[in-house]
């Protein structure tokens, strides 16, 4: 029995960009909807750190959306990376068995 394993020279492939950005975009849409239904961006101006002092509603929504997108994309990236390296580890394990 043979187990074929695809080894990539690159850590991330171009296709991964879609796998990372697209689901995190959907997640960011959902998160923004929930968050901004409860929180008025203007509230951040008063209650948040000084950084948010100049925030308006429109920029608040946009910053929030991109923030959620970035966080979700971070999680997606980690997932892709872990799946990739899991395959690599399988390969190493099997190589070790082979050399015995």
């Amino acid at each position: 029995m043979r187990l074929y394993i695809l080894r990539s020279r690159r850590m991330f492939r171009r296709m991964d960009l879609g796998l990372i950005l697209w689901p995190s975009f959907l997640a960011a849409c959902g998160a923004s909807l929930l968050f901004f239904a409860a929180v008025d961006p203007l509230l951040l101006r008063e209650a948040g750190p000084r950084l948010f002092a100049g925030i308006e509603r429109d920029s608040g929504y946009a910053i929030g959306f991109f923030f959620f997108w970035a966080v979700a994309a971070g999680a997606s990236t980690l997932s892709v990376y872990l799946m990739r390296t899991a395959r690599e580890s399988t390969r190493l394990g099997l190589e070790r068995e082979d050399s015995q």
Partner: protein
Amino acid sequence: MKPQAVIVDQPADQPFYAAAQKIYPREVNGRYSQLRRAAVVVLLGLFYAVAWISWEGHQALLFDLPARKFHVFGLTLWPQDFLYLALLLIIAALSLFFFTALAGRLWCGYACPQTVWTELFTWIEQWTEGPRSRRMKLDQGPWTAGKLVRKGLKQFLWIALAAYTGFTFVGYFTPIRALGGQLLDRSVGAWALFWIVLYALATYGNAGFLREQVCKYMCPYARFQSAMFDKSTLIISYDQARGEPRGGRRRGTAAAPSQGDCIDCTLCVQVCPTGIDIRRGLQYECIACGACIDACNGVMDRMGSPRGLIRYTTEQSLQGGAARVLRPRMLVYAALLCAIIGLFTYSLANRSPVILDVIRDRNALYREVHGGAIENIYSLRIINLDSHPHRYQLSADGLPRLKIADPQGPIEVPPGTVSTVAARLQAPIDGVTGIHQVTLTLTALESPRTQVREQTRFIGPRS
């Protein structure tokens, strides 16, 4: 046996997926294409037109994010009404499940924005570049002046349409008339412009460029819809028993006994927007658009054979059984759907148009005022959720001789705004030792049925 690993090195420059072949869907006419054309006209017509309808002085359908309120015709919803939005989303999801179990990918074939806009972009493509064969030749041919004109015209129309779509989309979130005016005199805000461009790019990319790849690689629904399928779900299927073995024959002659009805003209493949061959069986790429049915019916008509070699059917009836509509799955979906729609309508019908929050003054528990009375101070948050201004009268009960020292007159609150007013309650000192529950009532003077009651505490000196 232990698996033996064989490592295959992937060349660094080789893409993970085979590059997608461009699909040139062939134009088709028939019952289902007419249905889809009607759906496109109605849905896109609604999308582009409803944004411009006014209702009682405001845009009829406006999710006014800058003002944080939603107008849905006569109804005005505020962030406090988030429940309705959540219920509406659940209803939408459940309906999708219900219709998928009943009739497969109806949504994909006729109503999904991806399908609808792709269809519109394809019309433009057919109008500027001609039918399928001409489009293929045009793409292979050299860059002549004619090709430049056709391609240029197509791109121009696509970009214009995409830009207008982006504008309309943003026009549902910020008043469209004002937005249009700002675009014309170039005073539009940077963020509004940013979202318009982003949505225009998405439209152009999805409907002009990605097309079926959205359904194949990006759409979550396309992946999980099969979970709602069972043997009685309507699918589009090729009748293997009747069609095979396929092969050519002369027009008007019946198939030889050894031969099936399929003449292998491949029209069903050429019209397919996702580029699959339905004769290979149900595939997840199939968006159930019915184009192959129309194409094949046309061929069968010309051949003088009965229609329906490719048709809407169910796995059950293909195997000779009878399809059942009333299945446990359907009943469960239907029951859930009815329950949530009921809940939604009930809560919307009984929605109180005013909200009252009572917060006790944090500085003092109570104080004594002249005339031997104890006074408690509250801060009232009154939210008028109606679309009209209201004057509210405050009253209090729960203690003998409890009276309102302030405010005695009505409190005026404009529509959709939160008013914070200080209220002072007084009660004679004898008999108010300890903590008492009291009820504050707010009644709209214009419509006494609009009323809220809120409990709070009235604190007196310790005995």
